[in-house]
């Protein structure tokens, strides 16, 4: 239906076509057709007014919301913040130490920010308790049980800058995260899975 809906002048030219070629010199037909000339003049006038309105709206201080609006939005976001699950870092006789997945993700992103060419995105963290029997230990081996500690499984999705060498950069990123975690929370990252899901322009 839409194509027939486009208004046409008496001479048969569509408004759409005149609009599309408004910046070019008039065609031979347009030069001699009064209807086309009128339509061109009016549309040129509209085009100029549109451009000016776009500019003036952009810079008009009256066309901005109060700063309170942003604060109100952020207040709601803070009140309903998604912290993810809680990760138990340490358990002692007199209590436990936990960290939210979200806070831990922030630490990981701060570490990742130090590697050029990487923008960290989503992050999922699991904790694997060392006391689970049979895990990560070939059957029959003994002796590590008493010193084993829980370890973190980090799954991080990133965007990489166009043109970087991905394997080398990701290895540096993995190293950075593996070093940062024990320093920050005292638990080592057992596994750091990195997925490059996108490339960004630089």
């Amino acid at each position: 239906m839409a194509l027939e809906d486009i208004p046409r002048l008496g001479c048969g030219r569509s408004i759409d076509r005149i609009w599309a070629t408004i910046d070019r010199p008039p065609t031979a037909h347009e030069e001699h057709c009064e209807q086309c000339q009128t339509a061109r003049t009016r549309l040129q006038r509209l085009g100029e007014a549109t451009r000016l309105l776009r500019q003036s709206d952009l810079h008009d201080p009256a066309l901005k919301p109060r700063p309170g609006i942003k604060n109100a939005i952020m207040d709601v976001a803070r009140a309903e913040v998604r912290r993810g699950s809680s990760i138990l870092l340490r358990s002692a006789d007199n209590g436990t130490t936990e960290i939210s997945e979200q806070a831990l993700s922030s630490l990981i992103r701060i570490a990742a920010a130090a590697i050029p060419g990487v923008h960290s995105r989503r992050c999922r963290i699991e904790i694997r308790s060392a006391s689970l029997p049979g895990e990560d230990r070939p059957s029959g081996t003994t002796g590590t049980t008493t010193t084993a500690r829980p370890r973190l499984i980090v799954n991080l999705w990133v965007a990489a800058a166009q043109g970087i060498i991905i394997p080398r950069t990701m290895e540096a990123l993995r190293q950075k995260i593996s070093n940062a975690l024990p320093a920050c929370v005292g638990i080592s990252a057992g596994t750091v899975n990195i997925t490059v899901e996108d490339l960004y322009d630089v």
Partner: protein
Amino acid sequence: MGDHGPGFEPDLDEASIVARAQDGDLAAFEHLVLTYQYRLFRLAYRMLNDHGEAEDMVQETLTTSWRGLPMLADVDAFGGWIYRLATNKCLDLLRKRSAHAVNCIQPEDMDTIPEACARAVPRGSDPAHEAEWSAEQDRLTAVLNTLPPAQRACWLLREMHGRSYAEIGVTLKISPTTVRGTLARARHQIAEGMSEWR
């Protein structure tokens, strides 16, 4: 660690910022709010012609987006999605308005409605010229306000905000071809309307 998360890397691409906000990162979400609040306000103001209602709309849209972010499948689609939320909230409000009262702007009243006319004068040009351009913008916004809301939204999204035909089509639930037809009619009507003002 405070609620604001880490210091923000200044050159982050928008998709990465959106992904972090999906994870609950408040600094990332705040960045999106700062980026989009003014654009959404300009759209809402030109749709609703009311400063307070436009502010409410910005607040509602961005709050809704925080709750809906985890469901957004494509991080590159945030811009289109937030414009869609805002446009549809404006159209809903205009439907409610017209159901409650006859609140349409009649063509003969248009030049007496100050709020429909934002005057912004380019600096440094001569006063007569400035007045003429300002009057020209007033005519444009006045005629714009006589268009049906969906057509006005279509024109604003394309001409003031540069959104794609495909995206506008999804927002208004019409095909990109119909978007093109709607835009052509809107331009035609506005151009004709402005010419009657001489």
